[in-house]
């Protein structure tokens, strides 16, 4: 078994963590098939029978709302000879029929009948051949997580201190609810999956270099000037949260509001936030950037969207960008969010493609083994560690990246998962 213990040393990490196929194989068992992994949002499956096809690590799963209204996650694999029972990416189905030999399951996962059942022993019990559910499924504010492992900490414990920030993001909605039925921009890049959370959460440091032109275009368009975030560094923004989570908390980083008069829709939106949260919190929501959030290992909340990181191999990753609409906000606000999103993100956006190009170059560069260590030491001399184990740093500090790697190292060093149990 790979020992990652000596590959993560405080302010330095070893290049093989991004490059070694045996590290990736270990990650599947120690992370992807062990911890809570985000699989989808309740708004994607509002009606009984609604489903979406997803993956946890390399394992295909179906997230479905059954006829009984209950949300379940099943391994997408027929109990007969193991074919994929659901090949559509999303839809509504009363039943899932395996295309191979026609075994059919209700959307609650029960086997209706093995086809040509007269050929089976009378003692064969249908109840023993339902779709296999993921052993653990839970949700927080509509975000649905599942775990391949039957044991482990609760979702509540896993999220811990990051819940406060998820709440803040959700609070941008005048009803406290979001809708992610906006389609999915799907990208792939030739690089390790861990580049995505790292890069996504340190934009204040790399922004002035790779996003300068795009940031200038953006502030011209929206009236919000984000350059203040890196011109004068702001303390207490970057947070490392126990559990490997990362947050950019901008509550103390007020941005100059646009000079122009807000539109009627913007005024109505502001009024709705005031009604729900009171003037003080509403003002904060309207004059600061919502927190940028990474929930270990695969969920990011970034400005306009939910982003899901999907590992494919040690040097290939899929990324899914799903814009978030704010339920009960004026249409103009939500359309504006979509247009803002397209400006920044997706394959043809003006900001995130530069990040992806950087990740691909990073993957190539890390084959150079002259000095194997990456340095993640910015702000280490002034780390503020809080009693709960989280740390806070300045806008460009790397304390959250150090926290990510410490957690990663811990999870990767835990005893390997027991071999798959026989039977059942």
């Amino acid at each position, binding site marked *: 078994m790979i020992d990652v213990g000596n590959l993560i040393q405080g302010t330095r990490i070893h290049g093989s963590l991004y490059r070694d196929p045996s590290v990736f194989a270990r990650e599947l068992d120690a992370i992807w098939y062990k911890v809570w992994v985000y699989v989808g949002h309740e708004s994607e499956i509002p009606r009984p029978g609604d489903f979406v096809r997803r993956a946890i690590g390399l394992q295909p799963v179906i997230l479905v709302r059954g006829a009984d209204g209950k949300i379940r996650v099943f391994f997408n694999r027929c109990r007969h000879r193991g074919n994929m029972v659901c090949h559509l990416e999303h839809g509504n189905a009363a039943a899932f029929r395996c295309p191979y030999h026609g075994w059919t399951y209700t959307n609650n996962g029960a086997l209706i009948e093995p086809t040509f059942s007269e050929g089976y022993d009378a003692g064969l019990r249908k109840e023993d051949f339902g779709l296999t559910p993921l052993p653990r499924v839970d949700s927080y504010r509509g975000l649905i997580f599942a775990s391949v492992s039957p044991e482990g900490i609760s979702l509540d414990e896993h999220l811990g201190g990051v819940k406060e920030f998820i709440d803040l993001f959700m609070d941008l909605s005048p009803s406290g609810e979001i809708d992610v039925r906006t389609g999915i921009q799907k990208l792939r890049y030739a690089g390790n999956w861990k580049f995505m959370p790292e890069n996504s959460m340190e934009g204040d440091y790399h922004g002035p270099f790779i996003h300068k032109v795009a940031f200038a275009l953006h502030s011209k368009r929206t009236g919000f000037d984000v350059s203040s975030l890196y011109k004068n560094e702001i303390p207490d923004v970057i947070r490392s949260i126990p559990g490997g989570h990362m947050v950019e908390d901008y509550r103390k980083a007020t941005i100059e509001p646009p000079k122009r008069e807000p539109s009627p829709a913007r005024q109505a939106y502001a009024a709705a936030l005031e009604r729900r949260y009171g003037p003080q919190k509403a003002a904060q929501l309207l004059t600061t950037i919502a927190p940028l959030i990474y929930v270990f290992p695969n969920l990011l909340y970034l400005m306009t969207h939910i982003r899901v990181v999907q590992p494919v191999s040690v040097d290939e990753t899929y990324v899914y960008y799903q814009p978030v609409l704010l339920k009960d906000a004026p249409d103009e606000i939500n359309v504006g969010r979509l247009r803002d999103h*397209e400006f920044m993100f997706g394959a043809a956006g003006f900001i995130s493609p530069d990040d992806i190009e950087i990740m691909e170059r990073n993957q190539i560069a890390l084959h150079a083994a002259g000095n194997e260590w990456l340095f993640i030491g910015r702000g280490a001399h002034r780390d503020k560690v809080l009693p709960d184990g989280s740390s806070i740093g300045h806008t460009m500090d790397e304390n959250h990246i150090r926290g990510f790697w410490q957690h990663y190292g811990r999870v990767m060093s835990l005893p390997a998962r027991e071999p798959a149990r026989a039977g059942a």
Partner: protein
Amino acid sequence: MDESRYEEWLDLWSEDALYWVPCNDDDIDPARHVSIIYDDRERLVQRVDRLKSGSVLAQQPKPRMRRLISNIEIVERGSAQLTVHSNFILGVARGGTQQIWAGRSIHELRSQGDSFKIARKTVLLIENDQEIPLLQFLI
């Protein structure tokens, strides 16, 4: 488009231009559903400005590109407007690989003087529901 003659390309468009590349499907509602590109004239100018700025990392070095356009068909002919469908296949060579992009373009052309301007261009990528690499050029 293949030779980075951005200003000339921009001149082809009308003032109320719309350059649209739908995401996930060909007939989505852009007010409810995300697009890959949804550029009005202002953003089209920004797209070109950004490409010209030299700051686009996926344009360093510049990819070599060449496209074929075929099956050109006028599907609607008004007094001052034409709707033209065509298919394209585009090769993009960069970083040791060649990407092939393919799709259908729908041009809405408006007559202006003795020529036409592009009022609207919709690009239906055959890959619009797949995991795609960066699209940091004009499609």
